[in-house]
């Protein structure tokens, strides 16, 4: 297994993730219903809605953490083409989560090892795929800390000594070190100060563009999707009520709920 997953040159038009008619409910409560879309390499899609809209359920299904009641989620594994992620064996799925996918949790504590140093957190994926040279692993760790604008002097510090914004940057570095082709983000700036949010979004946008990463970003915050997402899906009560190019949807919303969402954002 090579040190870094290198995907074969992908035809721009070959889908990276294909979602068909995904539905999931809890008893009589609908989580999400009949959701479908296709994501291409390097594309960022935003899923917006308020709490209870079903967006988190959808994200859990898409990232293979929750099986849907019906529908399919297929991912292009590179060799062998599109595969239904729920038919993968457990070791295949676990390996996918550690290499070709990233998951950035809203609360960075859910995505970091709090009792392992920053360098160790970033280096873990590298060690998991077989890297065995301490200085090289540490150098790559320092490299990534720089990329996410964390000070190199913090490389041996534990994440609990970091601020929320710094922990989030560390989580991002930890996920991106194996250059995943797809990253799931759940409210990546939720819980952070407004000023910190802006800087983090800028960073994310830069990294995503530079590394050609595809991403699915779930958020209630329109500013996040405005900055990060190429396309947008608006969810309300478990259904997708509107979708399209981000700017088009936000500048000219058709569905009444989207109109409500857009108009209720405070113009500062």
């Amino acid at each position, binding site marked *: 297994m090579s040190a870094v997953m290198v995907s074969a040159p992908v035809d721009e038009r070959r889908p990276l993730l294909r979602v068909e008619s995904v539905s999931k409910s809890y008893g009589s409560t609908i989580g999400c219903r009949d959701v479908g879309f296709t994501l291409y390499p390097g594309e960022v899609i935003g899923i917006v809605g308020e709490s209870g809209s079903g967006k988190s359920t959808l994200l859990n299904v898409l990232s293979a953490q929750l099986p849907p009641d019906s529908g399919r989620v297929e991912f292009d594994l590179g060799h062998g083409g599109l595969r239904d992620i729920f038919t993968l064996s*457990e*070791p295949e799925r*676990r*390996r996918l989560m*550690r290499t070709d996918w990233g998951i950035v949790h809203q609360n960075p504590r859910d995505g970091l*090892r709090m009792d*392992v*140093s920053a*360098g*160790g957190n970033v*280096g*873990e*994926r590298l*060690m*998991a*795929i077989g890297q*065995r*040279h*301490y*200085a090289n*692993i*540490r150098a790559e760790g320092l490299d990534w800390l720089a990329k996410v604008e964390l000070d190199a002097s913090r*490389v*041996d510090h534990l994440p609990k000594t970091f601020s929320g914004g710094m922990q989030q940057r560390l989580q991002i570095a930890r996920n991106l070190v194996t250059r995943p082709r797809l990253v799931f983000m759940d409210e990546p700036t939720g819980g952070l100060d407004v000023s910190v949010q802006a800087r983090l979004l800028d960073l994310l946008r830069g990294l995503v563009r530079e590394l050609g990463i595809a991403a699915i970003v779930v958020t209630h915050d329109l500013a996040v999707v405005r900055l990060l997402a190429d396309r947008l899906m608006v969810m309300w009560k478990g259904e997708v009520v509107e979708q399209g190019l981000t700017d088009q949807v936000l500048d000219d919303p058709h569905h009444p709920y989207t109109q409500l969402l857009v108009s209720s954002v405070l113009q500062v």
Partner: protein
Amino acid sequence: MSAAMPAPVQWDTAYNFAYLDEQTKRMIRRAILKAVAVPGYQVPFGGREMPLAYGWGTGGIQVTASVIGPDDTLKVIDQGADDTTNAVSIRRFFERVAGVATTEATEEADIIQTRHRIPEAELAEGQVLVYQVPQPEPLRRLEPREAETRKMHGYAEYGLMHVNLYEDIARYGHIATTYGYPVMVNGRYLMSPSPIPKFDNPKMRDMKALQLFGAGREKRIYAIPPYTSVKSLDFEDHPFTVQSWDDCCALCGATDSYLDEVILDDRGGKMFVCSDTHYCGQRRADGHVGPQGVPGVEEAR
């Protein structure tokens, strides 16, 4: 072994030979066979309560009890010594329930049950080394859940162990594990060698004897068949190293054995002595003398 017909062994007939009933021994031997077939893999087994406490060698005792025969000669050591209290206790147990011959001479033993050390003298084909194991799972301190560690072994997901070693180097400049140092067996399974000092790890590789590991409380058996590769985990630029001492053994002068520190007085006076008591005694019998030793003297019993 002597050429004359040995007297038939006598043991306490209130019990089956070697205490365990034959069904139980068969069950344990099946687990041992599985373990030998998959070197380094922990095989669960239905361990029984023994007359010695959990944590005091019940796993090793059950393994020994399942493989020992009336013609076998048994050696038992703890911390490398034959006469530490628990080694004595276990040896007396087998004398009572199996009546087998016992010895302190490493080369004369068919089965050597050990706690925390591998004998200094190289073992031969046909010998069996039985290790007492308190915690068979090398990942346990990093991941408390058994359900998760079984998956990690099943899928060979050992990155976490390397993270642990990385952290040591980042914090101390060295890998800070000095005993129970994790090893990769047969290139596939991560294994705990039991709390032997890392000094002993190299002896496990390509050993001529069969190595069996018994954890009674955790109910796991694992094994390393003879001539199997055993590699201690490290980094390319921080290779595995063993301990060394500035002193030699004060009694026999050995410079290649693991040394125990003995405190002599309350002013910091100390000396170093071979941990392997038989090895040390043998050297002295052969005429080697250390700075504080007297040649060929047998200690008072």
